């Protein structure tokens, strides 16, 4: 290959990073090696805790807390960055290496205007001097970042920008000084897929024009394969596999990479089925004769948005949404943030009252129920929420958390409740000894299992899964989706699955409702919608799934 003859721009050799704590030194990166060549985009892929972000912050010497490089070298040309002090690094950051942080919401200072913050970057990197020049350069930077009316936008504050616009501004700041290398740490993880696509396209265009190398940090294998020429797969602070993107995805060699590739949901994936013979719902005709467990008709919700002191303006969050879920099936409500999907979930759970429309469970309208009947309804319908860190009470042990529904509904005595907790822990594949532990000892996936166990305690018919797997790593997500599928076939559960991720819909749902700004734009079976989306919006969503066009060879290789 000819490229091996080139000089690498950045060369990381035997890099070790450790964090100091009261209990001693803990090494989090073990002998990491890689090169980045000029003009190349490479991606580091890994789960949370794999050391991918630590690698990025080690390069620019912005390791959090007590982290420090203990061995190895980071060569930027002939310059070993590990030997540079903070003052020298400050010159390198921005000028030589640009950085785009993960969270656009917290990485812009809310008290200064966008223009001020861009100008600050321009000034700090010494690109321009003099008030006029700096101003002109800042406008240019924002224009390049894709903010068309940059002159006007300069004086606005971060809260007046959408997430996508903020990330554009941050990319602009990162590229302000024309660095040779841009490190982008999960630059679009907080954004909607369609916005993600636009932002990444733009970033790719900019860096290609300028010949900037990009180090992309991401958890999304599909995104990495689509955007980078080479992929580095990290696990527990080590590189397990690296090489050209296509090769890694089509022919993964390391067992871990194989599993990662197999678990990554994509459009090409199959519905996760507990029973192999059941082919799931393929057309609407299959479900026409089954009575719906949950029927939602013309559901509408208006909120009042306060405008100044006493005036308020109605805002329609959910607009005439109708759908039905047959017994034992899964319906996915898909949409981007602000599409009203979570509001529908809240109304179904009777945590919010609809403005108009009806929700029927087994033919009974839930709006007219008395207090007592509502209480009884709650036994039949249970939620699992998104944030695994917020959904369990940190002050209660796992056993009490799972037993709480039984206590509230006065089911059984203490002994039978204990037995039920044990049974539930078994059902979600958690060891029984966890009952006396607290939530903070568990990982996100394990917490989500506990949340599922709590939801199942009262043997409900309907489970509302509000982004229940969105915060989880791919392998864990795959595991939870399999668990949900097993439980569904075992207990005949009906799922209302709220998600923003169409790839997950493909593997987890039978029916799908696509929502946009409060309205259902398209609904049908997953097979139909994915094969032939009729609406523009659905098509855009499908196209935006990263790595949609790349065939995954991992499933066969891993034998899963």
């Amino acid at each position: 290959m000819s490229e091996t003859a080139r000089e690498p721009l950045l060369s990381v050799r035997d890099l070790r990073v450790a964090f100091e704590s009261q209990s001693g030194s803990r090494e989090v990166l073990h002998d990491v090696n890689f090169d980045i060549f000029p003009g190349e985009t490479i991606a580091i892929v890994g789960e949370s805790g794999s050391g991918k972000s630590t690698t990025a912050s080690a390069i620019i010497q912005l390791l959090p807390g007590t982290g420090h490089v203990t061995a190895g070298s980071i060569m930027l040309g002939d310059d070993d960055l590990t030997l540079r002090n903070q003052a020298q690094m400050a010159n390198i950051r921005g000028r030589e290496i640009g950085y785009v942080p993960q969270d656009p919401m917290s990485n812009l200072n809310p008290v200064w205007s966008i223009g001020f913050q861009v100008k600050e970057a321009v000034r700090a990197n010494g690109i321009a001097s003099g008030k006029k020049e700096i101003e002109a350069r800042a406008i240019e930077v924002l224009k390049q970042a894709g903010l068309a009316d940059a002159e006007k936008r300069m004086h606005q504050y971060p809260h007046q920008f959408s997430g996508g616009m903020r990330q554009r501004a941050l990319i602009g700041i990162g590229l302000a000084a024309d660095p040779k290398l841009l490190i982008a740490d999960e630059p679009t993880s907080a954004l909607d897929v369609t916005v993600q696509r636009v932002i990444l396209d733009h970033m790719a265009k900019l860096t290609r024009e300028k010949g900037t190398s990009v180090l992309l940090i991401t958890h999304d294998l599909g995104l990495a394969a689509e955007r980078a020429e080479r992929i580095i797969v990290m696990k527990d602070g080590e590189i397990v596999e690296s090489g050209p993107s296509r090769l890694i995805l089509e022919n993964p060699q390391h067992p871990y990479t194989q599993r990662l590739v197999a678990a990554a949901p994509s459009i090409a994936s199959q519905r996760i089925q507990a029973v192999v013979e059941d082919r799931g719902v393929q057309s609407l005709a299959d479900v026409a004769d089954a009575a719906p467990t949950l029927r939602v008709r013309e559901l509408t919700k208006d909120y009042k948005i306060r405008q100044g002191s006493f005036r308020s303006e109605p805002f329609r969050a959910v607009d005439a949404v109708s759908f039905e879920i047959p017994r034992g099936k899964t319906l996915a409500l898909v949409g981007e943030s602000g599409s009203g999907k979570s509001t529908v979930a809240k109304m179904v759970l009777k945590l919010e009252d609809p403005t108009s429309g009806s929700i029927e469970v087994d033919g009974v309208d839930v709006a007219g129920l008395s207090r007592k009947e509502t209480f009884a309804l709650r036994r039949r319908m249970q939620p699992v929420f998104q944030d695994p860190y917020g959904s369990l009470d940190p002050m209660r042990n796992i056993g009490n958390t799972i037993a709480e529904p039984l206590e509230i509904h006065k089911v059984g005595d203490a002994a039978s409740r204990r037995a039920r907790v044990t049974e539930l822990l078994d059902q979600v594949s958690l060891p029984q000894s966890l009952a006396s532990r607290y939530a903070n000892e568990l990982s996100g996936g394990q917490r989500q299992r506990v949340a599922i166990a709590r939801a199942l305690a009262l043997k409900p018919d309907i489970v509302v899964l509000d982004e229940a797997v969105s915060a989880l790593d791919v392998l864990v997500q795959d595991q939870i989706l399999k668990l949900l599928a097993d439980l569904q076939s075992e207990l005949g559960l009906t799922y209302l699955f709220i998600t923003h991720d169409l790839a997950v819909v493909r593997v987890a749902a039978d029916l799908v409702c696509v929502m946009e700004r409060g309205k259902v734009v398209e609904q049908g079976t997953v097979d139909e919608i994915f094969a032939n989306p009729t609406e523009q919006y659905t098509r855009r969503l499908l196209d935006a799934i990263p790595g949609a066009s790349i065939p995954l060879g991992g499933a066969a290789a891993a034998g899963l």
Partner: protein
Amino acid sequence: MSSDLNDPTGVNHYVAPAATTTLVVDAVRVDEKPSNLWSDAWRDLRRRPVFWVSLLVVAIVLLMAIWPTLFTQVAPNNGCELSNSNGGPSDGHPLGFTFLGCDVWSRMVWGARTSLTVGLLATIIGTVIGLIMGAFAGFYGGWLDSLLSRIGDIFFSIPYILAAIVVMSVFSTNRNVFTLAFAIGGFAWASTARVVRAEVLRVRQADFVTASRALGKSRFGTLISHVIPNAIAPLLVITTISLAAAIVAEATLAFLGVGLGSDVMSWGNDIAQAQQSLRVAPMALIYPSIILTVTVLAFILLGELIRDALDPRARARR
């Protein structure tokens, strides 16, 4: 596929030896020590000498309050002889005598009971009022929040020493430990309420609160069983500090002459009475002041340490 699998730079295809990594997804580690906020905090506290010193001081003062005869055999009131007025230390009277010829050490030991009782009672009253007001305001929101928060603001704007002076003047014929504790605690709850309200507002957003509601638990039940237990940690810290403040307040009111009657033994009264002979016998004022300061300091340090221990970020900074 490229041939060189050992090229670690990843230009060509590199695969790590498979044996180096285990492939159990999301394994549960139950062998580790159980941990939670409180046990972590305890492990942290246990290692800090200042914590043990403060705890020792608090324990000694508590012991004095419960069992004064353990520390002194001399009666604090009877047996005061004017011939001993402002006398220096003598056999059996290590800290000398007051203006009225009573034993200073004995009075300090016996005074601990009043000072601590007033401090504890006032703190309990203040904390309970603050907790109720703050929790209701934060959890229910809306007009109740506006109402309770404004009431809190009114109390916040009145210096509680001033308010206590007024209350104690009104109760001039009926001053006892309880009226004093009410006068202090009844006006010192506003800051507690603010902290509780902020915490409750934070906890209220958590999914487990919504989950509890979706289970059919009443709002009040959710507040009691989920929200308040999770909002209590910062309250604990305030409590230790307001305990210290209440002890000082008792002393201040006594010094101003609107505290408990002069027949009651308390550190505040000791200090107040010693001021008239400050020039001749300064030690009669200084000794009770020292025990007051040390006790208050011990409580405040304890509160600070507990706050640090409960905050993982503060722990990491050290």
